[in-house]
């Protein structure tokens, strides 16, 4: 018996290679495809010859930031999903489970309605603040009473808070049509408006969130066996939940702030990986980053192709792609619980 297989899932190398190849194809597709199809020489000009000033080359250059942004957002959402699912021990937990998305939405709406905020950079901080405050609030409620922050209490607190906040969002928006106009662009979720300065703002959140996720993965593995097993293995379950949930909020909050709420990525990317690699979070977390990046980028490309000559926002596409796949997985009863 070769016990080294307790370290690495049997098919890990194969899956990693396939994912990296897919990622490469996605990047290429995202640079080339869209309302204007770019030819290969133009692609090379755009990437490697900054002096060439053809239309095709400039299209490619414009798509680079968009591609990088969608890769980062996808990765952040994938990891955030894996974290939220581990923290709540609920396989259907999405980053939105702690009310993060609605909290961000509420703050952005308030900003537009009462503070006359209109630029993306201002949205970021508002949305982040909203996401963080909501998550802390939900976590606080979920921690009350016996047993601390148990999965079921977190989920109930998150669902209740989400419902309350989204009705607030509607209440603020309905009588103010100008708010609705501005807000609806943000709310759909799009990576099209990516700027390099936006990406630069995003990177610290991504790095801190992903590093935290990777470092807490072994402890989260213990948590998957139940709070008592984890405590018996020396895990401080309360602290772990707080740290991992904060990392998840950071990732999801930053993405939501810049791109608007994008659903399903956090759910879908982790499920696919768990199905293939099994439940070991040391592998599920980094691979969810890659699969999340793939799915979001593909969805963005699809949105550009379907919506041509304009484009369909990626938030719409992920819902359309994600929902049927998830239903299919559920029907085949292959949705692996934690």
């Amino acid at each position, binding site marked *: *018996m070769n016990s080294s297989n307790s370290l690495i899932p049997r098919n890990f190398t194969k899956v990693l290679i396939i994912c990296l190849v897919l990622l490469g194809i996605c990047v290429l597709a995202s640079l080339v495809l869209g309302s204007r199809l770019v030819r290969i020489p133009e692609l090379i000009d755009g990437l490697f010859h900054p002096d060439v000033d053809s239309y095709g080359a400039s299209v490619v250059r414009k798509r680079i930031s968009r591609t990088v942004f969608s890769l980062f957002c996808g990765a952040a959402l994938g990891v955030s999903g894996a974290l939220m699912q581990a923290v709540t*021990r609920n396989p259907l937990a999405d980053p939105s489970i702690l009310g993060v998305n609605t909290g961000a939405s509420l703050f952005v709406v308030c900003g537009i309605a009462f503070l006359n905020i209109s630029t993306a950079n201002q949205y970021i901080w508002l949305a982040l603040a909203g996401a963080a405050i909501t998550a802390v609030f939900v976590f606080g409620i979920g921690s009350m009473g016996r047993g601390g922050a148990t999965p079921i209490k977190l989920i109930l607190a998150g669902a209740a808070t989400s419902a309350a906040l989204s009705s607030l969002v509607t209440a603020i928006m309905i009588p103010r049509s100008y708010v609705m106009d501005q807000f609806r662009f943000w709310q759909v979720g799009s990576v099209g408006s990516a700027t390099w300065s936006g990406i630069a703002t995003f990177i610290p959140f991504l790095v801190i969130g992903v590093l935290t996720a990777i470092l807490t993965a072994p402890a989260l593995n213990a948590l998957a066996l139940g709070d008592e097993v984890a405590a018996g293995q*020396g895990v401080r379950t309360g602290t772990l939940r707080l740290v991992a949930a904060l990392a998840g909020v950071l990732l999801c909050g930053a993405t939501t702030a810049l791109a608007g709420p994008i659903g399903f990525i956090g759910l879908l990317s982790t499920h696919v990986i768990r199905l293939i690699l099994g439940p*070991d979070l040391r592998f599920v977390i980094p691979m969810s980053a890659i699969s999340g990046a793939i799915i979001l980028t593909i969805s963005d490309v699809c949105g550009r192709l379907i919506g041509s000559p304009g484009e369909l926002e990626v938030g719409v596409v992920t819902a359309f792609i994600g929902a049927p796949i998830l239903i299919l997985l559920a029907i085949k009863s292959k949705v692996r619980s934690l």
Partner: protein
Amino acid sequence: MKPTHLFQAEQLVAGYENKTVIQDVSLVIPSHKISVIIGANGCGKSTLLKTLARLIKPTSGTITLDGKPLGKLPSKPLARVIGMLPQSPIVPEGISVADLVGRGRFPHQSLFGGWTKKDNEAVAEAMRIMDITEFANHPIDELSGGQRQRVWIAMALAQETDILFLDEPTTFLDITYQVEILDLLTDLNRKHGTTIVMVLHDINLSARYADHIFALHQGKLVAEGEPSEVITSTLVKDIFGLDCTVIEDPISGSPLVVPRGRYHVNQEV
């Protein structure tokens, strides 16, 4: 042989919220022995075990390991000395036997250290002791109840602790598997010197396999000692409220509790 430890609880009071379950329990866990906590349903056996294994914070009183209060010891190094297998751990779907056993290595791994050769050896050894090596790559879902329980115990073994707490490790198992699990735990105790403290439901198996019995009644420790001294018809009547005759177990010589119900009682006894 595992090192000797002094594991001690003094005037322990513990429970949940406003409900006190354990009342003023003082005890010393005998090192290198198998101790079994017995008592009626709801008497606080599990709560006592969980409190000793620091899953529940005591309301008052102290638990010390070699003179140091448990609460003051850093949790990860402590998890290399005391391990706990709770009654109903959660099985992540699709997890393989080797992967699950490997999770017991968590307290031995540093934040950046990753998996080492020593981890591999400990996992292989734990699977060998529990005789599950042949299932290493099988998903847990495919195993029988008895095999599963061996996997969980193997996980606890991979943690390589000197003291092991087990909460009803034989519940829901057929009698064959109950005996098998208890034999394997005795192997572990005899060969490696692991101190074992467990809660068992079956008083006769407790009497046979325990070196030391802690008898609990309504949260209080009412008797302790070797099974032959502790398990008497008076004690069984006191803590379980059951009339019985205690005879000698023809196999082991330990006390055997034969209950007396309202039916099926022969005239001459």
